[in-house]
């Protein structure tokens, strides 16, 4: 079976057949963008459903089970409801920024999806600074959150947005440094090359102790980065209403909500790519069938998403000062020491390779 998954090239070649090259490449890009948009809008909805189901099982409940078999259409119905709702706004809101903010959040999270290598070929955009691009893009989203909080002209929204700023800016350091630890092993920022080095063993095995520490730090910081419990200071329901998106309704609210879940997927996907060998199957058991890589990639990602959900339904929330103590007094120093250890290991060739 030979399914061509190199979507950008396939579509462009097909288009070049009947139009000039410049137009074809732009059109090809738009088509790929639309495909990604459609896939991940639906995937985001199903992540919401998964979260609700998993939450229910953790709490000895059943979860949504009315709309469609096993509740499978529940989030679709919710999305339809949100589309049909009125877009309300506050009178004194800064209208331009207020309307702009949700797009910042959703576009930045959709942009990050372009660089993931779902299989060897199924990668829309193999940029040579892949990891750097991901870190940069993930910090653009927080601008949307700050804008939303500021322009809503609501004290609670502003406090929520400011907390988000504090949290994201702090934890970005840990994400960046823990990924940097792994980059020491690969020697490249390009995601396809990172996957290539992992053919000799996933990086979490290659780098053994410091890699495991880096993974733990990455997961903690990643949970904080997506503003999920136990780090959900941003939308602390008990204190701030809904935090930065208190004043949003209808589809604009849905954008924030969807972006949150796509961000969770992105964090898990980065971890899959950098620590767990992306689309590589364990021990290369399905190496002869390359398109199976999609299932390995999604399987690993969903495992990590489940881990984040497990965190959410287990751990109690942190106070803001505890949140900052955790980052600046624990994660950051450990991370810096960890980088040095990893450098020594790479220098002395103590990595494990098969």
């Amino acid at each position: 079976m030979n399914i061509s998954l190199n979507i950008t090239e396939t579509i462009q070649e097909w288009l070049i057949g009947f139009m000039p090259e410049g137009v074809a490449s732009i059109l090809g890009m738009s088509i790929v963008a639309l495909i990604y948009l459609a896939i991940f809008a639906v995937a985001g909805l199903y992540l919401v459903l998964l979260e609700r189901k998993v939450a229910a099982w953790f709490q000895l409940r059943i979860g949504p089970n009315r709309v469609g078999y096993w509740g499978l259409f529940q989030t679709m119905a919710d999305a339809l409801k949100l589309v049909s709702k009125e877009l309300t706004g506050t009178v004194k809101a800064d209208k331009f920024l207020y309307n702009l903010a949700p797009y910042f959040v959703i576009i930045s999270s959709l942009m990050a999806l372009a660089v993931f290598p779902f299989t060897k070929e199924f990668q829309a955009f193999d940029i040579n600074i892949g990891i750097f691009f991901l870190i940069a893009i993930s910090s653009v989203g927080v601008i949307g959150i700050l804008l939303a909080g500021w322009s809503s002209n609501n004290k609670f929204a502003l406090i929520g947005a400011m907390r988000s700023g504090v949290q994201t800016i702090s934890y970005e350091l840990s994400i960046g440094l823990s990924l940097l630890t792994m980059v020491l092993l690969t020697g490249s920022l390009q995601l396809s090359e990172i996957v290539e080095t992992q053919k000799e063993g996933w990086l979490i095995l290659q780098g053994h102790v410091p890699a495991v520490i880096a993974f733990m730090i990455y997961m903690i910081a990643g949970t904080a980065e997506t503003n999920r419990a136990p780090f959900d200071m941003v939308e602390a329901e008990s204190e701030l209403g809904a935090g930065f998106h208190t004043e949003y309704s209808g589809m604009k609210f849905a954008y924030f909500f969807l972006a949150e879940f796509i961000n969770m997927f992105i964090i898990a996907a980065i971890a899959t790519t950098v620590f767990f060998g992306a689309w590589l199957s364990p021990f290369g058991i399905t190496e002869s069938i390359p398109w199976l890589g999609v299932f390995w990639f999604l399987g690993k990602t969903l495992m990590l998403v489940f881990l984040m959900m497990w965190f959410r339904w287990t751990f109690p929330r942190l106070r803001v000062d505890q949140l900052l103590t955790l980052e600046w007094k624990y994660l950051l120093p450990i991370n810096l020491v960890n980088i040095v250890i990893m450098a020594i290991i790479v220098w002395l060739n103590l990595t494990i390779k098969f």
Partner: protein
Amino acid sequence: MSYISDIYTGIKTLLTGMSVTGKYFLTSRKGAITQQYPDNRSTLKMFERFRGEVVMPHDENNEHQCTGCQKCELACPNGSIEIIWDRGIDEATGKKKKFIDKHIYHLGLCTMCGLCIEACPTDAIVWAQNFENSTYDRTQLTKVLNRPGSKVKAGVED
């Protein structure tokens, strides 16, 4: 040195927590406590301690245990209970005695605090577990707890 041990205990306690919730996650399919309410209406049984409404049990001879002492009426913080009583002649002893004519209970006012039931010296009123109490007309929420023609059980007053 407490820095390292803090991290160690921190991670250990977090993992303990995760193992507890993980066990719940694995066993939840069997032990889900959700009641699929309108579907299981015929089999649904409420818990014994559930406070649905105040009722007065009657035995097979249409006899209840209410002596008309009015303690429940006094105990009720919002006046949900009204006792309409009368005096009559006790057939056995020939003495004058108080008995209830109507024990009126306003379900619409009741906050289910249970003070009346605690106050009753003869356990004449108890909690019922029914919860589908909505009606189209609120006069139906004013109930007479003692059945017509009922009388107090012999020996309750002693």
